[in-house]
């Protein structure tokens, strides 16, 4: 993770908007937003990152989850200027640059861990952090960790299977390696 805190100066664009430097999916960029714009709307409207979606607007559903300096946050609750100099990762940044899916994305496909998939991006981001933080999480711990992400289609069983399987695969990879 690049530390860019000192390059994080927000500047005014002159038309009432702010230029906000940030690292976005591994690339240095400048977000442009009004002071009250959320990170969610800025990522969608300015950056075209449509994998980040609004489900509730009040931090309750997790559909808008992105990684901010390595921690999952609800982007509907973060104001755009707050991300100055920080590192953001969205679902669009999970696959390798050549398009190879991450093992987590692959696990979601293998288990069909979605129906309408509106919630999927948020689950992927939260689960990615879970896998880093708790590589040995039990099924119960996974459920608990993911409880802040809602899926109205009720794909929970398959999401749980996918994440548990991912942890298993990563553990197997570690012992083999």
């Amino acid at each position, binding site marked *: 993770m690049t530390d860019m805190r000192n390059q994080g100066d927000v500047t005014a664009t002159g038309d009432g908007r702010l230029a906000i430097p940030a690292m976005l999916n591994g690339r240095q960029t400048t977000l442009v937003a009004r002071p009250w714009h959320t990170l969610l*709307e800025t990522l969608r409207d300015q950056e075209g990152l449509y994998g980040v979606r609004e489900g509730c607007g009040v931090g309750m559903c997790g559909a808008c989850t992105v990684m901010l300096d390595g921690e999952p946050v609800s982007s509907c609750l973060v104001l755009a200027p707050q991300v100055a100099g920080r590192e953001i990762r969205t679902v669009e940044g999970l696959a390798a640059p050549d398009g190879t899916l991450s093992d987590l994305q692959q696990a979601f496909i293998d288990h069909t861990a979605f129906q309408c998939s509106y919630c999927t991006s948020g689950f992927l981001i939260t689960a990615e952090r879970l896998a880093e933080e708790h590589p040995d999480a039990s099924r119960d711990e996974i459920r608990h960790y993911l409880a802040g992400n809602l899926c109205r289609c009720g794909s929970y069983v398959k999401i749980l299977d996918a994440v548990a399987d991912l942890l298993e695969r990563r553990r197997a990879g570690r012992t083999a390696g």
Partner: protein
Amino acid sequence: MSGVAKGLPGTWADTHRGTAQPEQPGMMDARDRVTGKVDYVINMTLPGMLHAMVLRSTAPAARIVRIDTEKARQVPGVVTVLTGRDIVSRTDVRSHFGPVFRDQPVLAVDRVRFVGEAVVAVAAVDRDAARAALDLVEVEYEELPPVFTFDEALAEDAALVHPEPPRAGATFADIIVHSQAGSNVCNTFKLRKGDIEEGFAQSDYVFEDTFTCPAVQHVPLETHCSVADARANDIVIHTTSQIPFMVRSQLAEVFNLPASRVRVVVHTLGGGFGGKCYPNTEPLTAMLSRFSGRPVKLHLSREEEFTAITRHAMRITLKTGLRADGKVIARKSTCHFNTGAYADIGPRLIKMGGIGTGGPTSIPHVWIDSAAVYTNLPPAGAYRGYGISQAAWAYETQIEMIAQRLGWDPYELRKKNLLVNGETNATGEVMDDAHWHELLDQVAAKIGWSWPQVPQRNGSKVRAKGLSCIIKGTVTPSASTSMVKMNEDGSLHVMTSSVEMGQGLQTSMAILAAERLAMSVANVIVSTPDTAFTPYDQQTSSSRSTHSMGMAVTRACGGIADQLLNLASEALEIAVDDLELSDGKVRAKGAPDKGIGYDVLVKNQKGGNLLATGEYITGGGLDPETGQGIAAVHWHQAAGAAEVEVDLETGKVNVLAYEAAVYAGRVVNPVQAELQAEGNVAFGLGHALFEEMVYDNGQLQNGNLGDYMIASFEDMPEHIGVNCLEEPVLNEIHGIGETGLPPVMPAIGNAVFHATGVRITDAPITAEKVLRGLRALEAARAAGASSAGPGTAR
């Protein structure tokens, strides 16, 4: 299906085939789904597009005295500020819409009828400008007396929600309009089978009980969104709709256009659950585009979504008569559905919901009165389960209450009454493919049902199990059509207007097409709806699409198969009868190396592609006086069993395990079948335990996801068993998208009763109600009162 003896026992589908396989994908576009690439309508922008925002009524019933939009118009970036009066003043458009009654104004005209009704709309260059303008609009209301409950709305001197009777328009073949002018009764349905008084006279026991369910919301994670371009005479609208052709006909009517000039494009939906069936954001978005001369986008906030459309609150009174041997012989049901301020599809829903109260039971004497009632609450419309969740909550709770009063085993009481082949349901249809006994037996065995249920106690917690079993129709008559196109490389386009909303519709259609044409699923693409190009489909709801559109697609593919066989017959000089389709080639039977690829055949034929169409149309209808006839082309059947744990100190209910059984006939996509069944458990569990729209003077108190709970990971049972029953001889697909939902609520309620002795008849079963029930039981025990129920045994 003709010529085949129906009613053979089924076999349990192996849905647990592990993970998805390339040849049997869980979802065709799975890669897009995990990379954030699904193109929901909310992602859409057009050059010059404006953003719309809506000012909504703060009064449940009021006369609009004055609207001042002057200051709002001055806000930089604002292009149009629209009121209902502006629409009425134009002669080339209509101001009202609605699928059955044209009772809903695009924007309120002179009067508001619920808190949340659209009053003024603004279209501006961005949301900031639109928001600023809304803040400057002034509306003055003169409040009128509102009606919210059934008792208020049906009172002799009740204030009328619609003082002028709403205009009925061209409507559906299966909806009979019996509205009662001068009252708040929006529509009624009646069913008369046998002689109800005779039935009660012959009964040894008669019980009467009343059940209620509150309004709940669909809560699709994607809220309603439309992007309309009505600058020219024609209208193009991209929208979140489960019924694109209904949006088309309504817009055509509102804008006085032939249907051919309205193009409705539907993308993949972020969930529907019935909430996106009938026109909602579409007329307003198109109207704003027409007035502003710019493309316009309207995307509802979660708060707006909550009052855009809801599920009917319901009150059902069941009077049920039984013989001494337990056979139910008479049922009278009185059903009220709160349809809110506008009818939406309430006039049809009361029919299915009303018929539903007959249950999966052969009852010789049935009398059903069902009514949709107007109130000053947000409109209620279609909802996953379509009235059957509410009906099943009533009859599957009552059958257990009766069993308890008579000291009988509720499983055995059901077994005495479940429909079998040759018996008739409420609408008098003779069952010829009945599987309720198998379904109930399966869940009972899987959950480990035993009688009597002795609650297992562990500290302050008690556990027990409960059962339920339901019947549900599917919309009839109905029509689905499809068109398929085989390309020069042998790949296939399937064009349908069925909507992909997470149920895996496109994948199921691809599987069926690939199967009929003996080709790889990976070479099939299934369209999303675009009414200018894809052929008619009545609706994507009612768990009908896999069956109906599946038939239409299979038939269209049959047309392609015939063409391929004929072309190959000419090319190979082999009679068609001696040829077969296999693995992307037409081959000679018995000499499989003698074959010719589809790609070669299409190229040889020189037309560029092969084209074929297919359709599937069902007929039926009910007698308007007796409700007898054909209500459904086939009957959806399901059973459920729940094991719950109740904390006696807090009243909190936890669902530990759930077994779902549905009659699928044939499972097309096992992974999707499981997902749908598991999703139904998540959905129904919320309805059973906590979902409820709470109003205070018509104002929704919990219209956000902080206060309105939906099931999260923490609420889910540790075990969900999915049991899909197939019937390999008939091999007829039965939809399962909502079939598994109605059993969930009563199964949980019955388990809570067996654990605690507390019987809740007004859903949801909140901790508070359970606790209150426990205290009442204790008090009754202390007083030594008898535990006799309210029923009247004779």
